[in-house]
């Protein structure tokens, strides 16, 4: 039996065949997980986000007009869900400034001495990046991730997040300033 296309599966789901949604989940769950892990390094948080993304996708499938690929629509939903998650987390005040641990500080010092990136200690790098990004506001983290890390354009960010172009520019400016301020605090730290 030939593999059904996304459009065929979506049509079946909209007709009431819930089981046709499963192949879509299987096909795209890896990519949704990758996006969720960028904003939620905790495995259970990432799982909750992915589940929420697919639940939203299922309930809002009727609004998918098929003008762009299903994957793009789903990834937009994933990024927006991650943003909601960051905001909810901020409301619970889970963010707090914390100093770098010895391993992270050592890695940074090493980077300062030798510009060649040492990727040996991947876990330290990951936790360092997460520690810094987690101290940014949700909007700043979102913009820095999309603009600087994923290397997306302002227009792409606008399409993904649903923010207007001027709003993305303003948020990018604020995010860079916030990042600079945060890194200034770290630079003044005794380890550096």
């Amino acid at each position, binding site marked *: 039996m030939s593999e059904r296309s996304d459009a065929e599966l979506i049509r079946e789901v909209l007709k009431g065949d819930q089981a046709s949604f*499963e192949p879509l989940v299987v096909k795209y769950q890896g990519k949704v997980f990758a996006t969720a892990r960028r904003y939620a390094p905790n495995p259970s948080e990432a799982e909750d986000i992915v589940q929420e993304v697919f*639940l939203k996708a299922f309930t809002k499938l009727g609004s998918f007009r098929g003008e762009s690929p299903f994957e793009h629509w789903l990834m937009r939903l994933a990024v927006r869900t991650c943003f909601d998650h960051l905001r909810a987390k901020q409301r619970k005040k889970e963010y707090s400034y914390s100093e770098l641990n010895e391993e992270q500080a050592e890695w*940074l010092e090493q980077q300062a001495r030798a510009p060649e990136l040492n990727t040996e200690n991947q876990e330290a790098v990951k936790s360092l990046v997460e520690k*810094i990004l987690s101290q940014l506001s949700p909007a700043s983290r979102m913009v820095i991730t999309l603009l600087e890390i994923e290397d997306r354009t302002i227009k792409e960010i606008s399409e993904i997040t649903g923010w207007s172009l001027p709003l993305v520019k303003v948020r990018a400016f604020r995010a860079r300033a916030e990042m600079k301020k945060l890194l200034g605090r770290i630079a003044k730290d005794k380890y550096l």
Partner: protein
Amino acid sequence: MNEQKLQQIIIKAARQITPDESVPYAFEKRIMQGLRKVSEVDVLGLWSRMLWRAAFPSVMVMVLTGAWVQYSSSEQNTVEMDMPDIEYAVLVPVDLSSEENW
């Protein structure tokens, strides 16, 4: 180290972290299970939502009906209380004349 250099290091490091696309075992089953729960019609929830929505219009209807009944009954009372007075005033000459005739 200044902030600029620190930022470059952090961004460069973040770019080198490859997004992990691994999926927990049978995760799609968990999602499909969640979808089934969503699709089940919550009759009690639906009923309570409908009751809440109907509460305000019901109270408004009750208040308006009460006001209307109050207004109309007070109008009726006024008429009832005035009737003997009118009757008395109208019939007094008749009564007097009939007494004289006797």
